[in-house]
């Protein structure tokens, strides 16, 4: 009997389960290393050299260098771990989360101030909400290709 994973049809969402965790082990452990100030300095001084100290896949390294958190998540990253990269860059959680939507920082902040994203249409893949794949990218950042 297969494992029960009812969360696979939630749009725009990757649940960090044991399978993702196995895939992302070294990526996430690299993120953990950024909790030490000397490591943050070494990473900032030479990102590629620092990443090469970790047995990560090329895709994981490229995703980190591009600061593309969606790619990082697909490669097994978890947002609580990936937040350490944002902290190293001096970014807030809001800036990090917003960067994954294709919206500019201002667009995302405005959405949150207006009460956030509605669950309507965003509960199951195939509905018509703004988080559905056919509505990406959502904002100016994505359309300008700067995300």
């Amino acid at each position, binding site marked *: 009997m297969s494992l029960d994973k009812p969360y696979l049809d939630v749009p725009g969402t990757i649940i960090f389960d044991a399978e993702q965790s196995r895939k992302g082990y070294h990526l996430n452990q690299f993120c953990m290393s950024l909790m030490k100030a000397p490591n943050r300095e070494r990473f900032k001084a030479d990102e590629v050299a620092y990443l090469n100290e970790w047995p990560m896949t090329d895709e994981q390294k490229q995703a980190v260098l591009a600061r593309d958190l969606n790619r990082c998540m697909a490669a097994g990253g978890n947002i609580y771990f990936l937040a350490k990269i944002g902290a190293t860059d001096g970014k807030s959680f*809001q800036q990090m989360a917003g960067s994954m939507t294709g919206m500019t920082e201002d667009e995302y902040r405005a959405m949150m101030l207006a009460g956030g994203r509605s669950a309507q249409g965003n509960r199951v893949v195939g509905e018509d909400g703004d988080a559905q794949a056919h509505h990406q990218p959502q904002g100016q950042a994505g359309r300008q290709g700067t995300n």
Partner: protein
Amino acid sequence: MAKITASVFTSHVPAIGAAIDLGKTTEPYWQPLFKGYEYSKQWMKGNKPDVIILVFNDHATAFSLEMIPTFAIGTAESYQPADEGWGPRPVPVVRGHPELAAHIAQSVIQQDFDLTIVNKMDVDHGLTVPLSLMCGQPEAWPCPVIPFAVNVVQYPVPSGQRCFNLGKAIRKAVESFDEDLNVHIWGTGGMSHQLQGARAGLINREWDNAWLDQMIADPAACAATPHIDYVREAGSEGIELVMWLIARGAMSDVPYDATDLEAARAHSVEVKHRFYHVPASNTAVGHLILENT
């Protein structure tokens, strides 16, 4: 005999900690949120516990992917604020209560809940932001704190039902501690939020408030909420709400044996304060204070 007299529930958003530390609490963005905690700070002063059992989740801070305990209880003398990448928060060191913590570990494990016993760990915003919200910026925290960490980062995470039952076991443990102690149990984290992907920023005000209504009035039914409902309705990180059910299960109106109707009728809880606000950074903020009557 030690006794749990009250439970406190609150979100523990990191940006709230940053707003406090950087002196931004009166800015227009933050002012409505902190106003919701003014009563709470006064209440804390008038209802100072001897010990707080603080249920929170570690955000990939003390526990990396090297070890992922589902439930972990801190039995140390003290805990340092963690460096989560921004440097440690400028808040007091957290004093523990090793004797009560060790007693709870012994009792709860004997009630068939596996706890990981932790004698050394740093504590992140999950633990320190609730203390700041309830106590302000004191020189020292008002009482010892027992950190109780729950894995809600890597699935599978414990069910609401298991958390609720764990709360009952914690109450039983506390009540078998010989010293007279006034104990609070806090459930932290949660309310609508999703920090990831194209769905980031999901907020479901109606669902959050209906969940709160049910958690107060019919916690046993609330505990039956399956994980997938939290994810679909309150966002992927809304799953943190299961931790509130540990504190709720520890209140005296929840009978240890659900079929014991006499016990169920003998106690009730009083809602001292309830607050809800959107947004704080990416999330909705919920807050509740319950007292045993």
